[in-house]
């Protein structure tokens, strides 16, 4: 088991370096004056320009610049936002919990509903339910989620007035950000109705963000379950006189979940991409919205290191999923 984990960690390191190389290269590729790009200031006179180049290390050879960059990263210096002058890391860590909360809610929604729908669809293959689940999931991942969000807002927020249109919580409430998770913080605060309000704000964005993962998980669970139910060991289980429930849920599901787990892990990437769109629509103050605004405002330090942070996040999650997969699937564990 340890060698399995060690091997996976070994793969992490070059990937991390590769991503830093990517973000480093990305920023260097922006057309225009590098000082302007880095500092956001234009038309400096030649002397100030030269000084700035010196200070930013822009006249050093590229590989030296790269090592400087890595050095800074190792010290936790991710630069400053051009707009707010706050540290990039500071802004990221302040906004990240919002995205995390949204993503977890979306994933829970997608996971629970998707698994359930997939298992039932597989058990009732060819029925109305099965066709319905397949149809809805196909529509689910064919749909532009920003449009889906707008439609739901149109219907539920504007039309029926059930949910609010934007934000995490009503401005009337003053919640102290202890954990950054609105649902938890509102429970700690003594404001009446704050928790419910936070929940109301969370529902629609979570559904929108979770729609594509829901579709993918439902489909994957169904096909995985169908494949597993055809396997010989299911026949053996039935030949042992086990109850149908036990055959499906103990013998079948355990094996069916394995490929689904990989898919769920891969959905994290989709979630982050979707978060960008969802946060924009619902004005949800997370890192997705932060990144898009930075791009629009040409706040390049934020863009560069924001992308780096997000990439690292995705890598970490994939790593954890890989490890969990090893736990779930004994065959992989013992492999070379």
């Amino acid at each position, binding site marked *: 088991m340890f060698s399995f984990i060690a091997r996976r960690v070994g793969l992490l390191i070059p990937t991390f370096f590769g991503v830093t190389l990517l973000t480093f290269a990305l920023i260097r590729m922006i057309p225009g004056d590098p000082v302007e790009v880095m500092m956001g200031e234009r038309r400096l006179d030649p002397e100030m320009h030269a000084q700035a180049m010196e200070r930013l290390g822009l006249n050093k050879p590229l590989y030296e610049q790269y090592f400087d960059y890595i050095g800074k990263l190792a010290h936790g210096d991710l630069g400053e936002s051009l707009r707010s002058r706050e540290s990039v890391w500071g802004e990221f860590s302040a906004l990240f919990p919002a995205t995390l909360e949204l993503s977890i809610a979306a994933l829970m929604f997608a996971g629970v509903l998707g698994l359930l729908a997939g298992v039932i669809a597989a058990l009732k293959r060819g029925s109305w339910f099965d066709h319905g689940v397949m149809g809805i999931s196909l529509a689910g991942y064919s749909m532009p989620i920003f449009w889906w969000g707008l439609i739901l*807002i149109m219907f539920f927020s504007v039309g029926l007035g059930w949910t609010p249109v934007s934000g995490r919580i009503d401005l009337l409430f003053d919640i102290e950000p202890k954990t950054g998770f609105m649902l938890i913080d509102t429970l700690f605060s003594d404001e009446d109705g704050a928790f419910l309000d936070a929940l109301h704000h969370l529902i629609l964005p979570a559904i929108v963000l979770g729609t594509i993962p829901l579709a993918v998980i439902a489909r994957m669970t169904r096909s995985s379950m169908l494949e597993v139910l055809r396997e010989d060991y299911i026949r053996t289980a039935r030949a042992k006189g086990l109850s149908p429930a036990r055959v499906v849920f103990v013998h079948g599901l355990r094996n069916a979940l394995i490929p689904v787990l990989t898919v769920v892990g891969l959905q994290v990437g989709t979630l*982050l991409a979707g978060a960008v769109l969802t946060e924009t629509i619902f004005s949800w103050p997370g890192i997705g919205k932060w990144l898009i605004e930075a791009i629009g405002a040409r706040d390049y330090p934020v863009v560069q290191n924001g992308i780096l942070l997000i990439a690292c996040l995705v890598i970490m999650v994939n790593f954890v999923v890989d490890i969990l997969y090893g736990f779930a699937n004994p065959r992989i564990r013992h492999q070379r």
Partner: protein
Amino acid sequence: MNTSNTATEVDQSLLYPSPYKEFWHAFAQNKGAVAGLLFMSLIVFCAIFAPWVAPHNPSEQYRDFLLTPPVWLEGGNWQFLLGTDELGRDLLSRLIEGSRLSLLIGLSSVVISLIPGVILGLFAGFFPRLLGPGIMRLMDIMLALPSLLLAVAIVAILGPGLINTVIAIAVVSLPSYVRLTRAAVMGELSRDYVTAARLAGAGLPRLMFITVLPNCMAPLIVQATLSFSSAILDAAALGFLGLGVQPPTPEWGTMLASARDYIERAWWVVTLPGLTILLSVLAINLMGDGLRDALDPKLKNAA
């Protein structure tokens, strides 16, 4: 013994149908796929003949008819079947023009990423020790970022617009082709017919492109179809974020960006462009599913 008694002359063409006939027969069994094909044919038709099919000029603003509802609602007008937007432009014409853009983006991004992707994948598969690991590491790094974010990053650097959108989407789809081709190639390389070709003296280019590649086409075709549909979605997303095709060009996603403010007043401006995206992508995905089902079983039988 047995066969001589049942002496009916069997139609040879039914016994050994051409691969195209077999494929079409399998494909046609999937009703969803056929529906998808029909819808896409409609879209392609609109795209090709847009200037003649569209009732109006997509950029013409009819100042007297701002935010007209679609014809079946109160206040609708037969002149503007699907209504008009906030600048009085006919929605139907804009959607038809938009189909041109979406198909163009989809097609060009697929072609631009398919060719290098397949070539890289071939090399990675044929040289698993020399080139393989390097190429795959690069692909893994590209895949470390969610595709939309990478596309956003690329567009952030290159600047917004149609061409950069195509480039960004092409770059983002590259890794899947490389991975797919490499996996397929490595599977085929262990087969006897490749060894036979090698022994017969086939040179590397011939081995790659004539011997092995045609047998890897099936998953590639399916992937290309799915890339096409995600290209449309990504292009729309970029347009919506203001990073892709810029207004007033009627890309479906870009149309939705300006429609946000009209949720309460003019739902059709919001609903219809998105609906077109949904139906197009759905149609392509259905076709892709049908393609996979029609091509895969053949693979299984041939094995």
